[in-house]
């Protein structure tokens, strides 16, 4: 029960500090700008002045959409880290935690409450932003990616993974340090994923394995690849995916993440939250 109180408090704080308003305004601006861009994309013609064939338009749209979602994924990770990394440490440092923890509240309820609050924010924000963006793309180009719902779920999961990491670090480290570590790990995992794919292309087992390990240590890149897969036109996957030279491209994915990886991601989040609880329980306030 106390965990739900803390979760509501976390959401209320995001609203009162105008985080939600700022995100909503910025997201609407970005969606407006990308809609304008996609509308122009739809009017592109071939050198002879005839309109682009619909298959090429779909391909171009999907590629631009992947880039837009790549930016969105980066902004989401950054926002999740900025918001979650000081969440516990700043309350301990300022003294806000003292009066709360002197109440009949367990430390696990505080960690779980904050995690639930942030997860709810991520789910609502990613769900709304993704659906609005896809609606704008559909309106301007007529393109609908093959898996809009799984796409949103992959992005939500990516946000939750990086937020969980930042929250866990926040139980011990200052917001600044926790934020820097979480972001560096996020980008390292992305680079690791790209390197692993290149290793696969060149048949280098060591690099390929390193990439797999980095995806398991921090599953954000694997989830990002899942979202790319859901954005690609089916024809593109089938035809161009057959050529191995595209396997190293971080913006092309030939197959969705295996179920075992998704199960591992759920376990990873559970382990990180459990570790955060253990760490905060041992923290002196």
């Amino acid at each position, binding site marked *: 029960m106390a965990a739900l109180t803390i979760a509501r*408090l976390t959401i209320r704080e995001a609203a009162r500090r105008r985080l939600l308003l700022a995100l909503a305004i910025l997201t609407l601006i970005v969606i407006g700008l990308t809609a304008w861009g996609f509308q122009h994309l739809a009017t592109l013609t071939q050198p002879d002045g005839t309109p682009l064939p619909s298959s090429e338009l779909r391909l171009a749209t999907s590629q631009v959409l992947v880039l837009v979602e790549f930016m969105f994924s980066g902004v989401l990770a950054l926002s999740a880290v900025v918001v979650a990394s000081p969440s516990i440490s700043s309350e301990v440092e300022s*003294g806000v935690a*003292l*009066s709360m923890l002197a109440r*009949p509240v367990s430390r696990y309820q505080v960690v779980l409450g904050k995690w639930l609050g942030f997860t709810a924010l991520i789910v609502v924000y990613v769900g709304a932003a993704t659906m609005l963006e896809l609606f704008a793309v559909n309106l301007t180009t007529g393109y609908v990616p093959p898996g809009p719902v799984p796409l949103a779920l992959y992005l939500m999961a990516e946000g939750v993974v990086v937020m969980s990491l930042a929250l866990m670090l926040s139980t011990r480290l200052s917001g600044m340090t926790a934020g820097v570590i979480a972001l560096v790990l996020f980008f390292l995992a992305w680079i690791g994923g790209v390197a692993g794919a290149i290793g696969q292309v060149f048949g280098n087992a060591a690099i390929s394995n390193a990439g797999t390990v980095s995806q398991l240590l921090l599953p954000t890149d694997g989830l990002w690849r899942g979202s790319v897969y859901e954005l690609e036109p089916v024809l593109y996957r089938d035809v161009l995916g057959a050529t191995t030279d595209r396997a190293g491209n971080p913006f092309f994915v030939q197959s969705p993440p295996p179920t075992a990886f998704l199960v591992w991601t759920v376990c990873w989040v559970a382990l990180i939250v459990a570790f955060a609880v253990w760490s905060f329980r041992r923290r*002196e306030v």
Partner: protein
Amino acid sequence: MRTVELTKHYGAAIALSGLTMVVPRGEVFGFLGPNGSGKTTAVKLLLGLTRPTGGEAWVLGRRAGDRETRSRVGYLPELFRYQGWLSAREVLALHCKLAGVTRAEWPAQIDDALSTVGLSGHGGAKVETYSKGMQQRLGLGVALLGNPELVVLDEPTSALDPVGRADTRTIIRRLRERGSAVFLNSHLLGEVEQVCDRVAVVSGGRVLATGRLDELLGTGGVRLRLAGIDGVAHSALARRGTVTESDGWVTVAGVPADAIPDLVTELVAGGARVYAVEPMHQTLEERFLALLQGEEARWQR
């Protein structure tokens, strides 16, 4: 509250060294000590906010930090900070919820807390707009929610003006009348002297002295302006305590207040002329400093 050899180390630093004390129920207990004596560490250990390196502690009959017990304890931390983006009413509602106060009681509890700490007209304002003193008053209000059996106040008047300090003393007295125990952690001796039934003086994490205020302060003595004192009068003075003379005043330390009339009678009967008699009261500050100096001398030895 009871502690036995309660110890806390932060790495090589010793914050609390074998604190042993008993705090009876229903009393206002002053916990006195110089800066860095381990007062706040002791409070945090009693509330389960930090874990002891050694020793044991019990609060309201249960182990310190027990979750159920914490619903019966109010706490104003020395570092008092509340969510600035909430209004005072919302902060109080949050603590009502966390303390397990039933929702039907919230409005009355919140109104009562705001009125008690003098913030009735400011309940709707955001805490971030409050002055430091108002935030400390709010913290006191938070500590009063849920009619706690024990209220722990860690330096409760550090940000308050003289009016606020007087208000806090009134609140503490009301809590005692209601039957709540108050653990007052302070280095403001005057404040402690005015409201506490019993005190403990700590230094270096150890209790140097503890007891009822009147027992702890003991007897001060008497200052007299005398003329015509002879050997008989001198011996009458010396029999009752240590005699010193300065600026025309004779001071006799260690004379109980009820023995002063007999001393004056004896002096007059011995031919002395008595111009002035001032019973001396040892202040808590004097006693406190004497205890600390004694402790320092002990360490130097």
